[in-house]
């Protein structure tokens, strides 16, 4: 058996060109585009489900469009959005925290290691 998961993402023979000034940004761009692709795939799958449900008269698209959640449902959904966006933007939040932190709480491990080795 071949390892199709790793083989699928093999690098092609020949050096990969980078175009952005910062390689790290291009790396993130590539990861983001892959995630964008999977969101599109999920959207198409959901669309298929909605259409199949519609064709079987189980659910019509207008029911989705006109759906109004009750207050509890609405709060649950908003909470989901808030959790989701915070998860996605984790690193931004952490960088903000670092800015606001007392420098004592934001020391480098090299610095701490040096101190712990000394004391």
């Amino acid at each position, binding site marked *: 058996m071949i390892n199709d998961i790793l083989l699928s993402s093999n690098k*092609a023979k020949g050096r990969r060109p980078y175009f952005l000034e910062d390689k790290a940004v291009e790396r993130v761009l590539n990861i983001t*585009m892959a995630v964008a692709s999977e969101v599109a795939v999920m959207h198409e799958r959901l669309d298929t489900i909605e259409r199949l449900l519609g064709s079987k008269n189980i659910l019509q698209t207008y029911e989705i469009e006109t759906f109004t959640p009750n207050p509890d449902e609405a709060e649950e959904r908003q909470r989901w959005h808030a959790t989701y966006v915070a998860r996605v933007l984790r690193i931004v939040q952490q960088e903000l925290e670092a800015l606001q932190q007392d420098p004592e709480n934001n020391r480098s491990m090299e610095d701490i290691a040096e101190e712990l080795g000394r004391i």
Partner: protein
Amino acid sequence: MESQTKTPAINLPPVYSLIGKHDVFPEMSHDETARYNFLANLNRHLSTVVAPANKIAFEKRVQPNFIKENGRDFQTRDEVKEAIKHDSQYQTWAALRRSQMEMRQQAGRSMTLRQAEDLAKKVAELTAKSPNTLILNENVKTPYYLEIMDNHCMPGSYHTELFEGDVSNAANYDSGLFVTSGGMLGKLTDGGGKAISSWVISNAPNFKPKRILDIGCGLGHNTLPLATAFPDAEVIGIDTGVPMLRYGHARAVALGITNVKFMQLNAEDTGFENESFDWIQSTMFLHETSTKAMQNIGSEIFRMLKPNGLSLHIEQPQYTPEMPLFEQFIRDWDAFNNNEPFWGAMHEVDMTKWLMSAGFKKEHLLQFGAKSINDNEDHTKPKPVEVEDHGRTAIWNVFGGWKK
């Protein structure tokens, strides 16, 4: 007064479910099909929305800055390449386009690799139905120009077999052409082969080829239209990539095309007899060779061609001094960034000289344009305005000649 900007009509690529499937075609799940739909749309967006801005950025910023700094305009496309590197619009387009190409390989290969063993089995079954029309020869080695990097950034390229009989890359190539070309090559991605055979039928009505050779045939997607257009001819496709030949042969059997044979041979030295073919064709092949190989191929073609025989080659337009440097640069982009390194050198070759050095006479040379014959187009709908995406459109330059 309000200024009105003309927005081109939305030009959607055909949905992937329109692709022509056959018995050896990989099985695709709902999500794998959806992934290809995303990639075709990303490709279309990049080529119609993002790519055109490269030229604007070039004219507004890159060129004026260069002139200001150097007191002169660009003289070579390499200078353009060097200067545009620092432009943010270009960087964005290039990074996204490279990413799209890698994603396309990943999407296709993850789909074919998970079923690699089933694909090999299907191919073996179809091969058994017509064992004499696939002739492999283990003495034919992968040429250096294919070995040195993976063409089109397809990991493993045309020649790698992960196990005996593996055709996963060939199936990946077959499935993905529809995505990278936005369906412009038709349901079976045979628009090039169809275009050339229809040109021959209309422009040389008395030419009745009995034996046709397609060099660098790959999986035969442009070979089969020749066999269909000339059912009385014996058509032979040659290539060095074993998985491509195995898959292409099984594909031809699956499509019920019987007058075609696939052989593992190097076009530089085929071993075919002198004057044994009426027509020798290559379609988007020469740019994947090298200068020396091209010389050898030219002589080999002339040797194999019967008197009054025809040889034609489909490529993108040659770079001429009249072609703007920006256009040359952008056409050359894939050479460096989609692993087709001979692209630029090949498009600079003087084809008249190449054909004449092979033995063709000047007065019998041919050159014309050809456009893909595309059965994906809905001819009842108005055609949206096409945005030129240099080197990535299915409009070709054909050159060749009659051996007289």
